[in-house]
């Protein structure tokens, strides 16, 4: 058992899904050819003036409310000054002492325990451009399309006590923001980025140890690994009599270790001051209440409602709630066909498997809740077997045909017609006299073998329940 306690705080940057940038009318769009979504404002050309995107502020308020934070009645923007080629103005427009939201919390579940993680603040700012380093030609190339993309930076209190907790917090935060629809939270596209502060202290000590700041983690898994690495390094350094220096470290995913940044990049003196180009904003209580009214049901509330309203297991509820699209699809299906557990089984099982196989989201599936329900109803009626039902689902997703059309086209309907089944059964009985004798002499379980044989003869289309019933009846008659 370690004699140290780990203390972690996270800073998460999220790109907001507005149509335009935060201070100009350029499209906020990922994946365009370099320098095609730029204008005098985001290029920082002299004489240009930034004007705040109303939607970006509303998204900021939305996120703040969902994080149980206080929305500042007065906010302003400040200049954070530093030189780097991805920042054409020589300063980033950010918020210093009057951020959009402060003093909130997010409830997370970690190791089966619920825990409240304090949110210190959430502020709006603009993203910087994208730099590509070309070592061969000894130059760096800048694409300013990303410049001016609206960001919200969400800063926790140092409340996280392990890399696993940090990981769980990130997943909860991401899901919450996805539910709000304010960001797609896609780390691969860079729309969610995370920096971490970590320190350790002897258990029982209240003063914080010296922290290091970790950057350059490209996934939640990388955040966790970087933190685990850094906690180990702090422990080893301190127990062997060394000292931790406050510095910024870069995570190297390939080498799985943290690396010191060059000192020249560390001189932080941002000289914040109010941006005179942007007037301040008074946020009326009525605006806050209006946004609050429009907040969607958040994942944790939905989870609890799914348990009580539909009697789902925690596992199923978790699977469904993990994606708002899936949860919405599920509820639309339940409206059509009031068998929530059966639908949940299909969603958490075959449907999720198809989504994973195809690497697509539920909205891209070629199937409606009505379509899925029609299939489930056929399986429940016994028209097709459970197994065949899964094949029908796959075919539905491939071709966009209805369940009934596919069942008919592929001849998948189970044969439940007595006379057709008796034909098969009589054959099987004639071919297996010894088994029949066993059954007659009081071993009814031997009938299973005959059911299997009959099933084979039917090409898998016979209804097994019906077969069992008819075989037992026939043998009793003979």
């Amino acid at each position, binding site marked *: 058992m370690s004699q140290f306690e780990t203390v972690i705080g996270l800073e998460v940057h999220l790109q907001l899904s507005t149509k335009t940038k935060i201070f100009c009318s350029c499209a906020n769009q990922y994946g365009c050819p370099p*320098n095609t979504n730029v204008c005098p404002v985001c290029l920082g050309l002299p004489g240009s003036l930034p004007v705040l995107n109303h939607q970006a502020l509303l998204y900021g308020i939305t996120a703040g409310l969902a994080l149980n934070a206080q929305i500042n009645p007065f906010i302003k923007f400040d200049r954070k000054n530093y030189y780097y080629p991805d920042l054409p103005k020589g300063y980033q427009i950010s918020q210093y002492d009057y951020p959009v939201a402060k003093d909130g919390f997010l409830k997370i579940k970690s190791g089966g325990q619920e825990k409240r993680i304090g949110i210190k603040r959430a502020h709006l700012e603009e993203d910087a451009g994208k730099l590509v380093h070309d070592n061969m030609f000894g130059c760096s190339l800048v694409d300013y399309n990303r410049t001016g993309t609206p960001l919200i930076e969400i800063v926790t209190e140092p409340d996280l006590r392990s890399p696993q907790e940090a990981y769980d917090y990130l997943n909860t935060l991401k899901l919450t923001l996805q539910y709000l629809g304010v960001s797609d939270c896609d780390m691969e596209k860079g729309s969610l980025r995370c920096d971490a502060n970590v320190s350790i202290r002897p258990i029982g000590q209240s003063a914080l140890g010296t922290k290091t700041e970790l950057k350059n983690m490209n996934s939640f898994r990388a955040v966790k690994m970087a933190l685990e690495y850094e906690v180990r390094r702090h422990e080893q350094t301190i127990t062997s009599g060394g000292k931790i220096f406050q510095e910024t470290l870069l995570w190297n995913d390939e080498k799985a270790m943290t690396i010191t940044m060059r000192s020249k990049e560390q001189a932080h003196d941002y000289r914040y001051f109010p941006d005179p180009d942007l*007037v301040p904003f008074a946020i009326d209580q009525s605006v806050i209440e209006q946004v609050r009214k429009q907040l969607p049901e958040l994942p944790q509330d939905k989870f609890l409602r799914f348990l009580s309203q539909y009697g789902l297991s925690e596992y199923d509820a978790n699977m469904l709630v993990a994606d708002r699209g899936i949860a919405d699809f599920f509820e639309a299906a339940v409206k059509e066909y009031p068998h929530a557990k059966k639908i949940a089984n299909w969603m958490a099982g075959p449907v999720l498997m198809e989504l994973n196989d195809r690497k697509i989201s539920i909205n891209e599936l070629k199937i409606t809740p009505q379509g899925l329900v029609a299939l489930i109803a056929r399986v429940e009626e016994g028209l097709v077997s459970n197994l065949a039902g899964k094949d029908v689902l796959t075919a539905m997703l491939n071709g966009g045909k209805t369940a009934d059309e596919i069942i008919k086209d592929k001849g998948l309907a189970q044969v439940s017609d007595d006379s057709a089944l008796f034909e098969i059964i009589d054959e099987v009985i004639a071919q297996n006299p010894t088994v029949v004798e066993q059954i007659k002499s009081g071993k009814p379980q031997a009938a299973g073998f005959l059911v299997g044989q009959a099933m084979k003869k039917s090409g898998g289309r016979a209804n097994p329940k019906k077969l069992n019933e008819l075989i037992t009846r026939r043998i009793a008659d003979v």
Partner: protein
Amino acid sequence: MSISKEDVKYVAALARMDVPEDKLEGFTRNLGDIVHYVEQLQKLDVEHVKPTSHAVPVGNVFRQDVVKASLTHNQALSVAVEAKDGCFKVPLVIE
């Protein structure tokens, strides 16, 4: 508050300016004079003055979230000192 040569070097470094050694003395004096001049404000009693960030009595100026045309790619790059692969070319920032 007096300004030292080190202060001048620090501010120059933040501004990415080269200050030749023989100019340092003069800049230090000039900057000191400016700061000293502004220092007069310290004598004012501002106890009843509300902190203010902006001098213009205007607030809540918004833009609706509607896309408008950006510059063309060529227009954008026309202000670049050098361009390469559709990007602004700058000296290598990471070795």
